[in-house]
């Protein structure tokens, strides 16, 4: 919050985030397009077992140490 009060949005921070994202796709040899497709197919399967209309899904590849991992954060309706 203080960062927002005192500093403007630094362009280099935006670049850093963009680079991390694009390099994670580059390294996984995956296009952002096929990532979207993977996400859609994954959600179809998940929804079959956990019917939910919560749209807050997050699927991404990220670097963990030396390897690339696919991280999926898919909230399921527990009620």
């Amino acid at each position, binding site marked *: 919050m*203080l960062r927002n009060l005192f*500093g403007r949005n*630094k*362009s*280099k*921070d935006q670049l850093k985030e963009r*680079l991390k994202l694009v390099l994670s796709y*580059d*390294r996984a040899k995956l296009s952002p397009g096929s990532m979207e497709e993977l996400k859609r197919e994954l959600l179809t399967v998940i929804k079959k077992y956990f019917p939910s209309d919560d749209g807050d899904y997050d699927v991404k590849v990220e670097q963990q140490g030396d390897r690339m991992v696919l991280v999926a954060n898919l909230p399921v309706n527990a009620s």
Partner: protein
Amino acid sequence: MNAKAIVVTSGKGGVGKTTTTANVGAALARLGEKVCVIDTDVGLRNLDVVMGLEGRVVYDLIDVFEGRCKLRQAIIRDKRVDTLHLLATSQTRDKSALSEERMRETVRALLEDEGFDRVLIDSPAGIESGFQTAASAASGALVVVNPEVSSVRDADRIIGLLEAREIPEVRLIINRLRPEMVKRGDMLEVDDVLEILGVKLIGIVPEDERILISTNIGSPASLEEGGPKVAAGAAFRDIARRIRGEDVAYPSFEQPKGIFAGLRRVFGAG
């Protein structure tokens, strides 16, 4: 670095491969090493003009490859530092004249038969056969990167290809850093680039207009000592010392951060 044959590469063009090869090569030679710099950018020859040796090229790397001259006849000795040598490339041929096998044999002959201590191979831009041939003879690599989006992305690709070739020593040179832009938050910091690319750093070279002036006159800036300090020239000399295994501290190009940055850090820690 233990590597005696080092490829200078970047993926992207125009980031300073040739300037780095000329300056680091000259600085290593000034430190007493017998150095040969090789231009492998067939068809786009430039290392000769950057070093001011264009008037002395008779035979080139492709002539050596194709047996039109002996290796020794193609080696040009520098006029300022007598341990510095250039092997120019052909301006009239194309990359198809390159051969990984001949490249490896030429580098072996330079190190074993001609008694060179170090060979720096200036790679062409790109990831195709020119780069692959340049990398094929190397056991170390200097990856030159500018702190901007396309250069960092291309460097990441090149680092992947160097790792695929199992080149043991891959080191990063961050070139054309602009401290005032870093201070404003409009340019990636050194730590950002290292975090993203995940390779070891061996040099930080600030943007310096005197590099252009030194290439105008064909004299590597790293050879200019005394007189007005050429920041980039000094940075290239530091890189040469680090290649030789010396522990050289990095000068701080960053100005102290402002009072608000300091406050933010204090509050942020709470």
